[in-house]
């Protein structure tokens, strides 16, 4: 699905990712863990095409050069990043935004826009999966949403768009226990042979609900350890220090 080779990312002349390489096969759930500041969000943002990052290297995404595409083209190709801190956009109605992005996608696929009642039915069905409801429709996008509500709102967009490649940046941080379970179920509902998921997380809990096929530890901008899910418990009990020592 995606093949990252020697990805270097810097921002304001600070080198953040250095020769980062990772291959994510179709149908896989990949977890990326690592200490604060190791570059996990930078990876997610650089893949999404954020304007603040200078990038080099090669990222092959479904046969095309991802880094050459504009941010919106990456989304069009099926990439979705649920951000660590989704921004608020005052004035842009939340429901209208969802309708706009969904119908833009349908248009690309040659489908008619959903009419109002079909759209509402779909939103309500998906929103129930992440515990959001009509209270959030009339509000501005993420504006004055709590941290957990923003995360769930991002996942709601993801459920509507049904992307093929999803990067979830600490979606579990800030979610209460029940919401975590809901969001995990929602993520599992999107799992398929045709889709890949990357979970960036600090905690074991989410990975108990959404079982990863592999785990990679990112430190100082590069992967220092790759393993199967058994690594999670060791990290949970021992932290990252021992990996630094091996290095």
């Amino acid at each position, binding site marked *: 699905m995606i093949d990252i080779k020697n990805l270097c990312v810097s921002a304001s002349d600070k080198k953040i990712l250095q020769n980062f390489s990772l291959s994510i096969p179709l149908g896989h759930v990949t977890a990326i863990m690592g200490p604060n500041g190791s570059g996990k969000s930078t990876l997610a943002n650089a893949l*999404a095409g954020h304007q603040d990052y200078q990038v080099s290297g090669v990222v092959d995404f479904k046969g095309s050069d991802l880094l050459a595409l504009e*941010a*919106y083209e990456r989304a069009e190709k099926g990439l*979705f990043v649920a*951000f660590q801190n989704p921004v608020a*956009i005052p004035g*842009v109605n939340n429901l209208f*935004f969802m309708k706009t992005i969904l119908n*833009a996608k349908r248009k690309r696929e040659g489908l008619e826009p959903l009419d109002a009642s079909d759209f509402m039915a779909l939103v309500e069905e998906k929103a129930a999966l992440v515990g959001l409801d009509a209270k959030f429709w009339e509000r501005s996008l993420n504006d004055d949403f709590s941290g957990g509500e923003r995360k769930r709102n991002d996942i709601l967009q993801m459920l509507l768009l049904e992307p093929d490649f999803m990067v979830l940046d600490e979606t579990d941080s800030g979610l209460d226990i029940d919401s975590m379970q809901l969001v995990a179920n929602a993520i599992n509902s999107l799992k398929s042979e045709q889709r890949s998921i990357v979970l960036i997380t600090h905690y074991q809990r989410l990975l108990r609900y959404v079982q990863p096929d592999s785990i990679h530890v990112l430190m100082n901008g590069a992967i220092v350890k790759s393993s199967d899910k058994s690594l999670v418990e060791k990290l949970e009990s021992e932290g990252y220090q021992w990996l630094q020592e091996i290095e």
Partner: protein
Amino acid sequence: MVTRNRIDFKDVAAVAVQEESWRRMPVMSFCYQQCRAQPIVSGKTLVTYNGHVKETIVGLQSVEYVHSSVWPGEFLYHEISQFPYTMTVTLTSGTYHWQDSSDVGCAARYLLVVEAGQYCVLHETMQLQDSARNLDIVVKKGASLQHYAALKPAGQMCDHIQVWVEEGASYQQFFAISGQDVYRRSQCFHALASDSQVMVQGMVAVKSQGFVSDHTLLKQHAANTRSIHRVNTILDQGAKADVYSTVDVVPKAPKVTTRQNIRHLLLSEDAKAFSKPALNISVDDVDCQHGAVSRMIDDDLLFYMNSRGLDRQQATQLYLEGYVDTCFKGYPEGDRLALQIKKAIGLLDE
């Protein structure tokens, strides 16, 4: 019968001299004659052309719509204020529509009086061209006027608006200014007595090297008066907007409330914005807030929308649509003004 009603505001003159920001605001004296002021029928459309009433409306004489006088050619209030009013009307409770247009080079002078205790809504569409206009409004005791002003000036336009709000009365102006030429407006609002309120809020959308200069003086003459002034602009393609807002609370007028907010949104690198919010207050017991910002659309917001599959243009449009809707939210009948601004910034076809 002629009744003369003269209000003399020496302070206005004093402020005009003192305040650099207010240099352009002319010294105004005021008198109006009620002799020919007749009520117009609510619900009908009042049409003025070249400063005169074009269509016969019950109670108003139709006048040949020749140019009312030679346009002074400068931004001088003194010149126009020498002319007699070209239209004088009184309003009683109801909803009014007013269309004001002209040929090039006219000078129009209007007086609207809202009778005591009356509740009026006025929808104005101004499409004057290369002209000067003076609009005086008196909102009498306990009356209320909601004034929706759709301003679509063309060429070089100068507008002088002066509003007197008597005790317990309220004047609310919701405006939309759109265009690509030069529009200069000076407005002066007098909250004359206890419980009089003035609210002026609206949006300016200019493009193609257009220029809007909007001077507003809110003068609170008495205790327990309130004023609100909020302006949002959207500037594109080398356009420029100067917004001056001065709240002037006379000495010995405590317990006044004022809100002032100027926000400019620049859509292109070559657009220019200037704000000068000022408060002249010499009493302690007041509740005032003011602020001004100029900015471009935040790249992070656009990026977020891009990351959901919207290209830059779609994202910008969505953002602007939300911006305009937010500005006009809470205006009871602001849809028409929102539409005007959306057309002006290309969100909707003309």
